[in-house]
């Protein structure tokens, strides 16, 4: 049994609050099951007071989206000198912004679908149709639209026909001012969790995602039964090794710490494309990281308890 006391942060004010609360509850139960004492705290006006008076040994961030992933909460914890599980504030800021992360990884030789990033103002000033036409010319169809920041597939949409683009743009821009459009790569969609260990970052078995509807959208993600998963993914050993290498490389190159999840697609020609990385992976009943830990023969609680130890050792 451990005598560690940790604070699990979940909730927040992002669009992913609901998912985060579920992640927080699941993670807290898993940590209690391995003997840690856990407080579950929302990020509200009472948080700093709780952190300073109750002084947990470490903080675990189960926040998704917004402040929990863009480096803000991490900055606060760094200012307070509190050990926490997860990526530091600087690397969070870089990984959180999907186009920035993609650009960094491309520069390091990783493959990612071709993309463009445009704010609403550009469409307004230059004329939407002309810019959309140029976008389709560059990326082809189908293409993927998603907000440049955020997760849980909120605002994300595959666009199959150019006539769908204006409406899809408006849907996407409801989540933020800037849209990331990327080439849609058809293939096997996988998610790879990477966990730091004394020997360096380790990729857990890839989880293959096959949504019944064909699209891994919010409903497919959070309704048990609407998506089938294969863990480990049904890949050749070579491809499995390559996706693991890709995830570990992304983890290292982006300066991520403790735990991350990389989403990737193995194209029909065998090429492996990086899609995006998550510094605070979902931990709900239908999330991918817990499936990966189970397939690796490790418990969620033990993995995070080890990460708590690492965070405390870092100081």
């Amino acid at each position, binding site marked *: 049994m451990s005598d560690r006391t940790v604070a699990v942060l979940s*909730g927040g*004010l992002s*669009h992913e*609050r*609901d998912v985060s*609360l579920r992640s927080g509850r699941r993670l807290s139960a898993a940590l209690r099951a391995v003997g840690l004492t856990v407080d579950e705290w929302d990020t*509200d006006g009472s948080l700093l007071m709780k952190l300073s008076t109750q002084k947990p040994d470490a903080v675990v961030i189960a926040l998704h989206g917004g402040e929990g992933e863009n480096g803000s909460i991490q900055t606060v914890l760094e200012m307070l000198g509190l050990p926490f599980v997860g990526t530091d504030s600087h690397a969070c800021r870089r990984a959180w912004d999907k186009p920035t992360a993609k650009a960094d990884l491309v520069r390091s030789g990783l493959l990612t679908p071709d993309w463009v990033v445009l704010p*609403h103002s550009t469409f*307004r000033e230059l004329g*939407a149709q002309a810019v959309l036409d140029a976008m389709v010319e560059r990326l082809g169809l189908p293409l993927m639209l998603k907000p440049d920041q955020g997760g*849980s597939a909120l605002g994300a949409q595959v666009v199959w026909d150019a*006539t769908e*683009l*204006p*409406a899809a*743009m*408006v*849907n996407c821009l*409801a*989540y*933020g001012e800037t849209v990331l459009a990327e080439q849609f790569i058809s293939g096997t969609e996988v998610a790879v969790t990477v966990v730091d*260990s004394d020997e*360096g*970052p*380790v*990729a*857990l*078995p890839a989880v*293959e995602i*096959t949504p019944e509807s064909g699209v891994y959208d*919010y*409903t497919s993600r*959070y*309704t*048990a*039964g*609407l*998506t*089938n*998963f*294969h*863990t*480990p*993914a*049904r*890949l*050749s*050993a*070579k491809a*499995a*090794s390559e*996706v*693991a*290498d890709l995830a*570990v*490389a992304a983890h290292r190159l982006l300066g991520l710490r403790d735990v991350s999840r990389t989403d990737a697609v193995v194209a029909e020609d065998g090429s492996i494309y990086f899609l995006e990385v998550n510094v605070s992976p979902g931990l709900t*009943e*239908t999330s991918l990281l817990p*499936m990966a830990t189970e397939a*690796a023969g490790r418990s969620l609680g033990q993995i995070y308890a080890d990460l708590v130890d690492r965070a405390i050792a870092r100081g």
Partner: protein
Amino acid sequence: MHSEEPEGNQVTPSTGQNLDPHLKRYAARAEGMTASEVRALFAVANRPEVVSLAGGMPNLAALPLDSIAAEVASLIAKEGLVALQYGSAHGLPALREQICDVMSLEGITGHPDDIVVTAGSQMALDLVTRIFIDPGDVVIAEGPSYVGALGTFASYQAQVVHVEMDAAGLVPEALRQALAVAQAQGRRVKFLYTIPNFQNPGGVTLDVIRRAEILEICRQAGVLVVEDNPYGLLGFEGQTYPALRSMDPDNVIYLGSFSKTFASGLRVGWALAPHAVREKLVLAAEAAVLSPPVLSQMIVSRYLSTHDWQGQIKSFQQMYRERRDTLLAGLDQHMPADCTWTKPDGGFFVWMTVPEGIDTKAMQPRAVTARVAYVPGIGFYADGFGSRQMRLSFCFPTLDRIREGVRRLAVVLEQEMELLRTFGPASRRISSGPQTPSPDTA
């Protein structure tokens, strides 16, 4: 680089995992019970930073909590062995008599034996639907209608046909036409579900003259009327309207509730039904819950007998009127020119129509970012309509919060209109529905 991936040249053997092993076992009525972004966004609306014009939670701040606490303590001390025991599915006789007094305010003469006490009127609606609806039967409802009722109808696989309303409520001619169409199609219409007073979500009240006409149409068509009346005593000028039940006791099932006039958390409502129907409702209630919560019934009964409950309702009326006035004044001041809204003279809700092209469901994330919440209109239709509408509730927030919420909402609408101007007519969307909020926001 370290990896736990296997080595070799073979494709990794793997058994597909579906996270719901019962997936193939669900009844057809469970189809559509899926996670939705709309519901998820409401989790944010519960945070104090967000002005929620979404929830239909009654404002309990005016209740005399100390004296209610004393009554509850005394009740447990003196009658605990009854209060904490099972009761009858029919409900406590004393409470049923008191319910008759409550209903008399709206002209209803009912017998206590014809009342079935339920765990909120939502349960009464469930029981009524359970005993009348076979899969495929038609329920006629106002368009828009209460989201919680639509959920109940869907769970019994009813087909909902919406009938238009205007400022005077359900339009009789539209009802006639809907019945004629259903009849011509050979569909079986079981009942009209209506909220005649301060409708949820429309905020409109059925004109008194129309009431007789609506009842006559239904009677001639052989269609039962289910009258849901949770807000009837919350007219802002203290006005009440004659209940449909008071005008046609044999063909109306009346649903009442203490949720808006006393305490929603106690979950006490009722159905007043013709004798034969009541018999079946009692048996259905027994099968569903054995008995409605006895402690809650006793608390309500004690409250009615020891407190000035009518005076309390008057104070609720005043409180909600101030809130309604504040919301309407804010809308007048801030909303873009093409917005229209209803002007309720009671209840909790305003129904707003936004400029063409705006999809209120798709706009919701922007609103949450701006820290204001509403309920998108499509949740109040079973057929995907309502994408240009939203429900705004004024019952819970303070006056200042309502003002601030409207200011924020106006900015959100302006931003959305700016997007539509950028992307042109092709960007106009119609959300597929329904994706409903959870009942606590309904």
